[in-house]
C-alpha cells in the first residue's frame, strides 16, 4: 500500500438520537485519523458513544439516531473516480466524504470497503439460516458489486422482490450461487473452523460462541474489505476463546494488511491488538495517540482513572483507584458547557469550566488530549473545591443525577 495519508479521517463527527426524553448527544465532535494497515482501538465505558461511532462510520444508524454533523473522509481512488460525477462535492482528490454520498452508494460500500464484526455472534447471525448460506450471501453480494463497480446501484437493482419470489421456483434464480457457497467453505477453513464442509451446513445454534465469532470474521472477510470494524469482538466470549479470536484477528491483519478499528471496553484487548488508541468519554475522544504514549503516560485524568481501575494480574497492588461517580447523562439539555469529566475529575480546575479543545501533548507525535493538563501542569491554587459540582442547578433536575452526585460525595470520602 502506498503511504499517502490516512485511510480514514473523521472530522467533527456528531451523532444524535432524537428520543422521547430529548436529544441525546451520543457522539459529538469526534476526530480521528486511521492509517492504512494499522490497528486502531477505541476504548471507553458503556454509554461513551464508541459503538455509535462505529455504526455512524458504516451508515448503519437506525431511527431515531442520525449523523448530524462532521465529515468522514475515506481514501479510495477507485471510489473517488466512480462518484466524482454524481457527487463532486464529496470528492477531494483520492478522498471521498462518505457523509456526502447518497445512501444507495454507501450501501454498496458495506462488505467491499468496510466490514463489521459485531459483539454478540449469536444474535448477529440469522438463527434460521445455515452459517454457510449467510457467508455465501456476503460473498455473493460482494461479487455482484465487484462485477459492476461503475454502477454503484447494480447490486440492489439486480435483485428485487420478483427475483426473490422466482428463487423459490427456479434454482437458477437463487441469489447465492454454488461458487459463493464453495468460497464460504474456504473462508470458514481460513478462520480455523475444523471440518468446514459439514459446519457450513449447520445453523448458528449448533456453533459454540467462539466458533461463531470465527464464522463472523469469515463473513466479514468475504468481500476483502479495506477496513474492518470490530465492535467488542470478544466481549461475549470466555477468556480462553477470546485469546483464540484475538490471535485470529492478529493473523489475518498480518496476512492481509487490512486496517482494523477495534471498539472495546477492555483495556487488555487494546493493549494486545492496537497500534494507536483513542479513549472515549461522553461522546468525545478525550485522548488519543500511540498505544505506548496513552498507556504509559496518560494525560487526561479519565485515561489515568481508567487505567487505575483495572485490577492487575501481576500481583495484587492494594486498593484500586476507581473513578468516582457515574457515567454522565448524554441528554442535550443536561450536558453542561464545560469539560464533561470535570465533575468526576480529581484535578478539576477553574479552567475546566470552559470546554477544553484538543491539545497536543508534549514530546510525542500525534498524542493529543482534550484536557488543559496537556499544556500546563495541575495547579492546586486554581483547583475547584471538593463538592463544587454537588447540588448544582444542572444536576438537581433529575433524581437519578442527584443520587449520582451523592454517590460522588461518598466515594470521594472513601478514597481518601
Amino acid at each position, binding site marked *: 500500500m502506498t503511504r499517502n495519508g490516512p485511510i480514514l479521517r473523521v472530522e467533527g463527527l456528531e451523532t444524535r438520537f432524537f428520543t422521547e426524553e430529548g436529544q441525546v448527544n451520543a457522539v459529538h465532535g469526534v476526530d480521528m485519523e486511521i492509517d492504512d494497515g494499522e490497528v486502531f482501538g477505541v476504548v471507553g465505558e458503556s454509554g461513551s458513544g464508541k459503538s455509535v461511532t462505529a455504526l455512524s462510520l458504516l451508515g448503519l444508524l437506525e431511527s431515531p439516531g442520525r449523523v448530524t454533523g462532521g465529515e468522514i473522509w475515506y481514501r479510495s481512488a477507485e471510489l473517488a473516480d466512480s462518484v466524482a460525477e454524481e457527487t463532486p462535492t464529496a470528492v477531494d482528490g483520492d478522498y471521498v466524504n462518505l457523509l456526502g454520498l447518497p445512501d444507495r452508494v454507501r450501501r454498496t460500500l458495506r462488505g467491499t470497503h468496510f466490514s463489521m464484526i459485531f459483539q454478540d455472534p449469536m444474535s448477529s447471525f440469522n438463527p434460521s439460516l445455515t452459517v454457510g448460506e449467510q457467508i455465501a450471501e456476503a460473498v455473493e453480494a460482494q461479487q455482484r458489486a465487484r462485477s459492476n463497480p461503475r454502477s454503484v446501484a447494480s447490486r440492489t437493482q439486480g435483485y428485487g422482490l420478483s427475483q426473490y419470489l422466482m428463487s423459490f421456483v427456479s434454482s437458477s434464480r437463487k441469489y447465492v450461487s454454488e461458487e459463493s457457497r464453495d468460497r464460504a467453505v474456504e473462508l470458514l477453513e481460513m478462520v480455523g473452523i475444523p*471440518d468446514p464442509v459439514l459446519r457450513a451446513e449447520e445453523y448458528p445454534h449448533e456453533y459454540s460462541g467462539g466458533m461463531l465469532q470465527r464464522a463472523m470474521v469469515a463473513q466479514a472477510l468475504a468481500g476483502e474489505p479495506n477496513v474492518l470494524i470490530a465492535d467488542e469482538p470478544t466481549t461475549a466470549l470466555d477468556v480462553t476463546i477470546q485469546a483464540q479470536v484475538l490471535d485470529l484477528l492478529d493473523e489475518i491483519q498480518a496476512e492481509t494488511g487490512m486496517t482494523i478499528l477495534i471498539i472495546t*471496553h477492555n483495556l*487488555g484487548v487494546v493493549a494486545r491488538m492496537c497500534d494507536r488508541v483513542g479513549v472515549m468519554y461522553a461522546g468525545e475522544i478525550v485522548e488519543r495517540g500511540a*498505544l505506548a504514549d496513552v498507556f504509559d503516560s496518560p494525560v487526561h485524568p479519565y485515561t489515568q482513572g*481508567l487505567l487505575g481501575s483495572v485490577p492487575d494480574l501481576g500481583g495484587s497492588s492494594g486498593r484500586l483507584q476507581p473513578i468516582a461517580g457515574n457515567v454522565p447523562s448524554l441528554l442535550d439539555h443536561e450536558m453542561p458547557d464545560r469539560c464533561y469529566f470535570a465533575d468526576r475529575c480529581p484535578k478539576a480546575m477553574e479552567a475546566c469550566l470552559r470546554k477544553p479543545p484538543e491539545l497536543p501533548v508534549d514530546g510525542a507525535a500525534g498524542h493529543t488530549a482534550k484536557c488543559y493538563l496537556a499544556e500546563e501542569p495541575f495547579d492546586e491554587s486554581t483547583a475547584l473545591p471538593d463538592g463544587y459540582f454537588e447540588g448544582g442547578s444542572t444536576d438537581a433536575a433529575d433524581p437519578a443525577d442527584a443520587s449520582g452526585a451523592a*454517590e460522588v460525595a461518598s466515594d470521594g470520602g*472513601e478514597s481518601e
Partner: protein
Amino acid sequence: MTDGSDTTDDASTDAEPLVRVRNLEKYFWENDSLFDRLFGEGKTAVKAVDGISFDIRRGETLGLVGESGCGKSTTGETMLRLQEPTGGRVEFEGENIYDLDGADLQAFRREAQVVFQDPFSSLDPRMTVGDIITQPLEIHGVGTAAEREERARELLGHVGLSADQLDRYPHEFSGGQRQRVGIARALALEPEFIVLDEPTSALDVSVQAQVLNLLDDLQEEFDLTYLLISHDLSVINHVCDRVAVMYLGELVEVGPAADLFAEPKHPYTEALLESVPRASTDERDRERQTISGDVPSPRNPPSGCSFRTRCPVVIRPPGLDVPRSAYREIVQYRTLLENGRLDPESRWEQLDDPDRTNTRAFVDGLYDELFTERFDGDDDAVVTESFEALADGDVEEAIELLRSRYESVCEVVNPELVDEPHPSACLRDDQPGSVRTAVDEWEGASTAVDATGSTGGADVDVAAPDGGTADADR
C-alpha cells in the same frame, strides 16, 4: 454421600472452617417430562457440579473461577440451598445444611447471603429500595417497622448511598448503585457468609473498582467470609485469599491466590492465566500459550480428565515416539471422529468421484488437512489405515484403530485433588493412592496389549512437567 477414600476428610487447618463442601453434586435432568416418563425414554443428566470438595475458612475470601457453563454459579446456589443438591453435603458451622428445616433453616438463611451479578434483575423493579432492604428484616420479624426503616438508612450509609433514597425505585439508579443496594440487602441480617456471584461483571471498570473496594471495606468492618464467583481472573487475583479453579463441573486446582497465580499447577489454570490480555504496553509482544478448542458439552463430558481434549500437555501413551504437537493433532482428529464432526459422505461428495474408487485421494486429502507433517513407520500405517476405514464409511473402525494405539492415560483415569494446601487435579501432579493405582493398572494393561508394537515403559512426561516449552500447542 459416602466419604470413602476421600482425602480431605480431616481438615489440616488449625481452625474449623466456616463452610465445608464435600462431594457436592448437582445434576440437571433433560427429557424428564411426564411424557418422557410415559414413553420410557431415558432421562439424561447434565452434571453441572460433579462432586466437588473444598473448605472456606472464617474471614477469608475464596475465589471460584471458571469459564461460562463450568458450574460455578450452580455451586454457589446449591451451597445456599437455593437448589437441592443431587448428592454430597455442605456443612455450615459444622451442620449439614441439607438436613436443616424449620427454624434451623431460617437461622442458616440469616447467616448466609448472596449478591448477584445482574444489577437489573437482582432487585424487584416494583419495590422501593427501602422495601428491598427491609425485606430480609421483615421475613425474619426483626424489629418494628420504624426500626427496620432506621436500619435500612444505616445500611444505605454503609454501602455509600445517601439515606434519603429509600423511596426510590431501582430503575432510578445506575448499575453500580443498584449493586450497592443488593449488597445492603445482603448485609441487613448481619450474616457471616456472603456468596458474591459475579458481583461486578455487569459493571464498567471504573464502577467495578468502586464496588470491589466497598466489598473489601465491608469485609473488614463486619468480619465477613466471602465466596467470590467470577470469570475474571484479575478480579479474583485482586480480591481473593484462596482460589479454586473449576472446569466442567469439577475443581481442577485449589490454592492460595499468590501461589496459584504465580505458579499454576494445572494446565487449565495456566491456560486461563495466559489467555487474559493485560492492560500494559508490552502485551503485544508477550509470549502466549493459549489453548485451542472449545469447552466440551457438559451433556457429554470427556472420559477421564475432563480437560484432556484441550490440554496442551496431555500424557502420551508409554513408548509412543511422536512429538507432542503431532500427538495433539491425532487427538483432535479422534475427537472430530468421536463427536461425529467428520463425515466421510460429505468428503466423498467433495472429491467429485461418484464411484468412490480413488481411496488414495480421499486419504491424502484428509492427511494434508489434518496433519502438518506425515508420520513415519507404524504411526503412518495406523493413521493411513484409519483414513482408509473412513473411506469405507466405517467410522467406528477408524476410531478403534486410533484408540488402540493412541489412548492416553488421561482418557481413562480421572485425576483428583489431594489434601494439601495447593493441590491440582492433574495426573502429572501428586495424586491420591487410588488414582495412582488406577494409572498403574492402566499402564500394565496397555503395555500388555501394545507389547507387540512398542517398547513399553513408563511415561516420560510425568517426570518432566514441561508445559511452557517449545512443543506446547502452537
